[in-house]
């Protein structure tokens, strides 16, 4: 069968109103779900899953993919407007998106988020369609030692998001690492820091920590000083994103997309680390380095490109190997199974129509996302005009509702408030929250892969240098660390002068 036939077969599945409608509804649900704090993209996909059981396989899967992509973009809306990541992947967007909103440039930030998301989406989808087989076999080379080296390198992002003080950033990261150890020990299965409470056995809920760390301090600060913000510019502002902005950020967007594709195609990492890595790379290479964290549009572009770049690429291990790439694709693989589809190499032979239908649906989804996103920005713009003292109580209620809904567990709401006070204390002490979050995500991955590696080798540490991939990331880590130390030294000299 030629490619031409395959495409025709795919078209026969996708070129109908139901397929378009499922994709369209999926994206709308995703954008709204992502935009509600606490109701992450993962939740939105999980909630949509049962609805797809009764649909035709291709429509059901397209619906879920729409929710996924919409959700990852939608998460940037509250991140920019109210400093609350709608979904973990959009935490990096806060770093520059929220300062822009404070300056009255929310519209510009949201516009750039959409453009960067859609561009990254296209790159990611193309990577899936063209390089799926190649990237998947490359990803299979990633065993625990390779993962360990990659995660170790990713931890250097912390320096890039620490702001003015590396020491404060490191402090924040250590706190994150510490809290990430709560729960069951991977290798021995013993309880760690659970204090006899069954609720802590599963570890601290990630969404609860995320919301607590970013949204709650704003709410507490508002309660502390209800009129402090009066007189400051808020509102969406007149400034919209321009083509010149897009052109200036284009390099960062493409770099972010490629980072997303790379990290997305390796199972087990997810969109949040990719967004942070893309952000810190953009900052490192930018001419406006000093402006990052203070409302630099390139930061928003890089973060959003980094997380949406993952969305198409996580389907690479899913379709080519049958292995879910992250939490969301683990849910989507359920939809495949419900319909008796077995993702993997044979699917490219047995269900070639569905594969090509999916490819085409994905391409269409980028376009639909652009339109739905544009409308969503216009709809949510009013949020920026709502006075903060009315907005914040509403945010609080949404957060409580959302965090409870993640796991139907009231304990998580308590975790959110506790983390909120910690976040507030950190805010007052000018300790950045982003390193905490990165450490909280990457810490367990680092530990697990370290211990799996040593189990594999029987305690022999040379396994961490077992192949070119590990050498590459070790070298990268060392080079980056040297650059950080030299940068810090230069900054100190500059201060003395």
């Amino acid at each position: 069968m030629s490619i031409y036939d395959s495409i025709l077969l795919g078209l026969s599945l996708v070129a109908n109103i139901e397929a378009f409608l499922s994709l369209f509804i999926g994206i709308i649900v995703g954008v709204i779900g992502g935009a509600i704090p606490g109701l992450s993209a993962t939740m939105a996909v999980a909630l949509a899953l049962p609805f797809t059981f009764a649909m035709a396989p291709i429509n059901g899967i397209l619906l879920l993919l729409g929710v996924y992509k919409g959700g990852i973009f939608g998460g940037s809306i509250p991140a920019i407007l109210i400093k609350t990541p709608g979904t973990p992947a959009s935490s990096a967007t806060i770093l520059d998106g929220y300062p822009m909103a404070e300056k009255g440039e929310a519209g510009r930030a949201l516009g750039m988020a959409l453009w960067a998301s859609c561009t990254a989406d296209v790159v990611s989808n193309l990577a899936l369609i063209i390089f799926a087989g190649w990237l998947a076999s490359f990803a299979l080379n990633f065993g625990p030692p390779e993962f360990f080296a990659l995660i170790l390198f990713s931890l250097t992002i912390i320096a890039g998001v620490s702001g003015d003080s590396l020491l404060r950033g490191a402090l924040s990261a250590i706190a994150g690492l510490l809290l990430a150890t709560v729960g069951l020990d991977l290798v021995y299965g013993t309880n760690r820091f659970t204090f006899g409470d069954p609720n802590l056995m599963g570890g601290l809920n990630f969404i609860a920590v995320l919301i607590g760390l970013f949204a709650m301090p704003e709410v507490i600060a508002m309660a502390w000083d209800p009129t402090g913000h009066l007189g400051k510019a808020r509102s969406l502002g007149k400034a919209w994103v321009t083509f010149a902005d897009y052109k200036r950020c284009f390099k960062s967007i493409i770099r972010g997309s490629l980072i997303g594709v790379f990290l997305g195609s390796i199972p087990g990492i997810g969109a949040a680390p990719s967004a942070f890595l893309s952000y810190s790379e953009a900052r490192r290479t930018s001419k406006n380095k000093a402006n990052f964290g203070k409302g630099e549009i390139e930061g928003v572009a890089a973060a959003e490109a980094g997380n949406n770049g993952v969305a198409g690429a996580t389907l690479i291990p899913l379709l080519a190997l049958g292995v879910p790439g992250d939490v969301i694709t683990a849910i989507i693989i359920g939809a495949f199974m419900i319909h008796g589809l077995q993702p993997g190499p044979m699917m490219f032979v047995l269900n070639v129509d569905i594969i090509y239908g999916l490819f085409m649906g994905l391409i269409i989804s980028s376009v639909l996302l652009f339109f739905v996103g544009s409308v969503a920005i216009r709809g949510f713009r009013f949020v920026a005009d709502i006075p903060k003292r009315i907005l914040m109580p509403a945010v609080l209620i949404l957060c409580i509702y959302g965090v409870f809904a993640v796991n139907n567990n009231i304990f998580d709401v308590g975790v959110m408030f506790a983390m909120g006070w910690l976040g507030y204390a950190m805010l007052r002490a000018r300790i950045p929250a982003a390193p905490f979050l990165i450490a909280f995500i990457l810490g367990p991955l680092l530990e697990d892969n370290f211990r799996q590696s040593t189990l594999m080798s029987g305690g022999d540490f040379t396994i961490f240098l077992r192949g070119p991939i590990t050498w590459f990331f070790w070298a990268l880590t060392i080079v980056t660390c040297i650059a950080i130390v030299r940068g810090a030294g230069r900054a100190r000299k500059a201060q003395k002068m």
Partner: protein
Amino acid sequence: MKFTKLMSAAAFAVGLGATAAWADYPERPINMVIPYGAGGATDISARTIAEPLGSAVGKPLVMANVTGAGGATGSVAVQNARADGYTMLFARVGSHSVNPAMKATLPYTLDDFRFVTVYEINPVACAVSPSSGINSMEDLIAKVKEGGVTYSSSGVGSLLHIAAVMVLDEFGVENPLQQATHIPQKGGGAAATAVLNGTATFLCTNSSAVASFVANGQLKPIMVTTAQPVVGFDAPTANELGKPALNQLVGWTGIAGPAGLPDDVADKWGAWMAAATKDAGFLEKMQARGSVIELMDPAAANAFIRGQYTKFRALVDRLGMRIEG
């Protein structure tokens, strides 16, 4: 979407006010807790039975995933719920026979639950990577004796963990904990990936979890633990290999309530399940995924789970696998 949340809130509110005679049970929606994540084997199984079961019950079933700690978080939520039949749990082999057998500090025991049914049995298959050069259990055991063999699991206290140990033990490997190395992963997908990419030598897991890898030729099955062969798995059964004791090593899904569940309620569940499992659509979907539908009434379900637990517990105690911390 919000509807289910509203329903559960409404159900909760009604529950505070009413103490009903059991004859009227159920007079409001029933909360069904799934202790594992969306899209996983338990979730899919639960949502497939929920359709015919809902019509048998006559009241809505409100499905909620409460995940964490290998099914313990959701199980504790039901353990602490009122035993009025309005909060029930989809219990699974991992949460209710392996974990209680292995983990001393688990906040619940089997005595905290009353099983009303087991409706699904999942055969267990052991598989290796085709490039490993292992073609049979015999090859595997020979390799284990040479040393350096590893097996992956979805975590400590999971079915996969005890399955690998039990299989090695049955095949005469002395001290399987020292002879082969356990490399725990986070989740069943990661466990299969570990064998795919050579991190681990083999795994023993539910046949449905590796069915797609086997169909795609990425994994090679070397044994199934049931007495009957499993469709799509070109591998001998445990009985053919002379190890019928392994028949007890199977996955299952059942429904349980808190310990004090009244007899009337349990009987009603028995009748509902009998009706629901006859549904043609349900049977077709479950069997397509490799499950064996085997309905047990409340008494049989309790006996079956106790039997499996006792077997696992004996193995755990003999090999010193009990986790005390």
